[in-house]
């Protein structure tokens, strides 16, 4: 198991994996432009960069999903060709994807069996799952169906799947994006243990504090090139962010004072049954948002955010009209168009396919949510020129980058489409704006732009409700923060009077008053040999 290290050539030991002069072109677009990267055994190497910097492309090349246009990948100094993921796996490269590929209706063991060699008996597999689980503190009941698991538990399945292949290099793509702070802590313990066993980890993240805590080396990409390689522990989060985006990130003006405007958005005891098998029921959600303030709703995905958003927007009707009040009007039984006419705006989490129809043009997507409130249809006939003008206004006001005069929404990058959708609603000057995950998957510059726009809207007297998994974001813009857990909402507390830890505990379902100790990581014993997966 101990790697036979070949003679030192230039500087330092021969890296476990190396990528040299990697160029990947898609047509005229160069996603990777001469990238060098060395990954050594026993290190956690961070790969940083904005959306579109080329991280995903590089990662796919290392995992054999893409072949580079130019450049080579080496394994212990020998050039290797990774034509498909099987070749990468044969060399000991494993990957934990950001978006889980799990079958909800199968059990943990069945999901793992899907990727294992055929002919493995169920009992052997369960034994191996238990063995890996106890070695790394990744506890999972192999017979539980996946739909009943939290995001953190689902991620454990992905990690166990990967570890059963006994990988030498594990690539992790944004692994903490769906985890509570406590769950993330547990993950870090596992990762540190894997590192101490002599495995290499490539850690892709945009959470700079995590990178500074975990990683000894970081490679920062921008525009498909390596702009900097550094020791993140010696840097500040701000200096890393500045290298990523190439300019100083604008500080968002923090909200000031206590909002004293009228109550514009009031929920009283909103209760809804779960929509379908995998949905979350809402249980007596009460909240009041005043004009001029931003209230943040923290919580881990799947705790009722989507259901609450739909109930606010009117895509799901409340059982009683009085459960949702917009500017004093009982709106619970009104559809989304009537709520928009009453001065409300909505930006859902999913951009493609919910907030926008990806195959339709931007001007058609302006009609989508504004047909009733911007006079885009008269006697049932569309006013295309007005729709195009509105789209142009949004594009200009929110600096939306796009190709062509009126392209399909699906061709825009995530950040630009999100700016377009935010602009579409904000230019309507809504009195009440409800946003779910405003900056999910959006690069740092666009995120700052969007947050500032939300603050400006609130300062003009609107009531803004932001549902977000990103606690840093909520602390940046929200005056008060409440936590959504399993369909119930805690009472909001002023952001200045709470901490990440307190919110994190609530997000995990604990009451911070009771559990003062914080999450206890499974005590790792620092055995130095790798796990023997038979």
């Amino acid at each position: 198991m101990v790697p036979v290290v070949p003679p030192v050539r230039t500087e330092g030991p021969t890296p476990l994996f190396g990528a040299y002069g990697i160029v990947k072109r898609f047509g005229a677009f160069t996603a990777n432009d001469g990238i060098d990267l060395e990954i050594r055994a026993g290190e956690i190497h961070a790969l940083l960069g904005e959306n579109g910097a080329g991280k995903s492309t590089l990662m796919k090349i290392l995992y054999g999903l893409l072949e580079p246009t130019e450049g080579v990948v080496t394994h212990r100094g020998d050039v290797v060709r990774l034509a498909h993921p099987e070749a990468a796996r044969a060399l000991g490269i494993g990957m934990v994807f950001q978006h889980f590929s799990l079958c909800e209706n199968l059990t943990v063991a069945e999901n793992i069996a899907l990727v294992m060699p055929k002919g493995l008996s169920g009992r052997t597999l369960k034994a191996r799952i238990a063995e890996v689980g106890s070695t790394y503190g990744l506890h999972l009941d192999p017979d539980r169906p996946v739909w009943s698991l939290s995001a953190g538990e689902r991620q454990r399945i992905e990690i166990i799947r990967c570890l059963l292949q006994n990988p030498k290099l594990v690539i992790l793509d944004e692994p903490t994006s769906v985890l509570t702070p406590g769950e993330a802590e547990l993950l870090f313990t596992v990762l540190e243990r894997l590192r101490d066993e002599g495995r290499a980890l490539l850690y892709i993240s945009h959470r700079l504090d995590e990178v500074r805590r975990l990683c000894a080396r970081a490679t920062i990409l921008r525009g498909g090139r390596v702009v900097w390689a550094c020791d993140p522990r010696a840097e500040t989060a701000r200096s890393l962010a500045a290298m990523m985006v190439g300019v100083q990130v604008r500080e968002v003006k923090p909200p000031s004072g206590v909002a004293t405007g009228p109550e514009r958005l009031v929920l009283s005891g909103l209760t809804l049954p779960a929509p379908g098998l995998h949905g979350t029921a809402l249980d007596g959600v009460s909240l009041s948002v005043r004009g001029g303030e931003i209230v943040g709703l923290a919580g881990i995905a799947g705790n009722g955010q989507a259901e609450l958003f739909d109930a606010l927007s009117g895509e799901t009707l409340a059982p009683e009209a009085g459960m949702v009040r917009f500017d004093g009007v009982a709106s619970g039984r009104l559809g989304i168009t009537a709520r928009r006419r009453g001065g409300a705006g909505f930006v859902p989490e999913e951009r493609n396919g919910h907030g926008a129809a990806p195959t339709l043009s931007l001007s058609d997507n302006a009609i989508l949510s504004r047909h009733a409130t911007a006079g885009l249809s008269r006697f049932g006939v569309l006013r295309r020129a007005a729709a195009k003008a509105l789209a142009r206004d949004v594009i200009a006001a929110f600096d939306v980058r796009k190709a062509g005069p009126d392209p399909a929404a699906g061709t825009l990058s995530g950040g630009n489409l999100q700016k377009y959708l935010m602009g579409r609603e904000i230019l309507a000057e809504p009195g009440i704006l409800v946003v779910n995950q405003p900056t999910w998957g959006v690069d740092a510059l666009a995120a700052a732009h969007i947050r500032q726009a939300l603050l400006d809207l609130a300062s003009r007297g609107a009531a803004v409700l932001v549902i977000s998994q990103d606690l840093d974001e909520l602390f940046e813009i929200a005056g008060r923060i409440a936590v959504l857990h399993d369909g119930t909402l805690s009472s909001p507390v002023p952001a200045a009077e709470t901490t990440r830890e307190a919110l994190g505990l609530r997000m995990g379902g604990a009451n911070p008053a009771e559990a003062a100790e914080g999450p206890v990581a499974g005590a790792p014993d620092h055995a130095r040999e790798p796990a023997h997966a038979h």
Partner: protein
Amino acid sequence: MRIDLTPRTNRSALMDALSPILAFLAALVVGGLVVAVMGRSPAAAFVTYFVAPLSEVWSLQEVAVKAAPLALIATGLAFCYRANIWNIGAEGQFVVGGLFGGWIGVASHGSPGDPLWVLPLMLLVGTGAGMLYGLIPALLKVRLGVSEILTSLMLVYVAELLLDYMARGPLRDPAGFNFPQSVTFDDAARLPYLMEGGTLHAGVAIALAVVVLATLVLGRTLFGFTVRVVGASPRAARFAGFSDGRLTLAVFAVSGGAAGLAGICEVAGRIGQLQPSISPGYGFTAIIVAFLGRLSPMGILVAALVIALTTIGGEGAQIDLKLPLDLTRAFQGLLLALVLGADALSRYRVRLVPGATA
């Protein structure tokens, strides 16, 4: 070995336009091979199928008269299929439109002085009957969640048997020597011919007008926008405030109405009386036409002409070359498969992944 379809990021507009033409050429090649295997000359078959019908005035008129109901029905169906709602029962809505519209023709038989209200009333009743008949599966879907595919299809047989019964029973011409057919309509109940001594009737003009109207409705109105959004992205449609249920009712009403109108145009145009059967399967062929025309009214017009041409040509091939009618049907099916295949290829890149299993 695994075959992956990855969406093309930049689709070529040229290939989008060329793909149905290439598919048609490929269908010609395959069809020619089949004809050769059957021991006939592919060149002669080509002439009989595609050239002869276009070379004479009467056969050109026949093509137009056959294409009109196909275009009319398929245009209505395009509204359904664009919104991912599956009306398979246009044949039944066609028959019901012909039956109830034709009933007016039978009832008004012998009215003195050729009253002007008869024909408009027939068209109105025929359209309305098709619309109401189409609303049955729509209501069952919206209220009870019954699959519209099954109910609309099964209602075809109900409609056909109802027409059969009416033409043999209550509406039979009492002076018709027991032939199972109604009286021949008065001139006031017939669509006028557009050419002296020809078969081209006003139903063709109605079909053209509906195609143009449908183009405007789909592209320029909020209703057309709703249909497009529901089809492209159902969740975004709900976000836009468009109701699924209301749209289901609306598109079934539109497609049922269009099929009913086609039915009464056929009865008041080409046939001129009620018979136990009034359709050679127009309502089913129109499904092929709708997809051949890629669910756009103008494309449907072209597709309807192509299908009508092969049908007329197929009749000629039966007589001149002794080629079976089934060959024509097979060719039409082949054409649809190839057009859909070419469409998929212009939208997706096919990638062979060697050795992969998972």
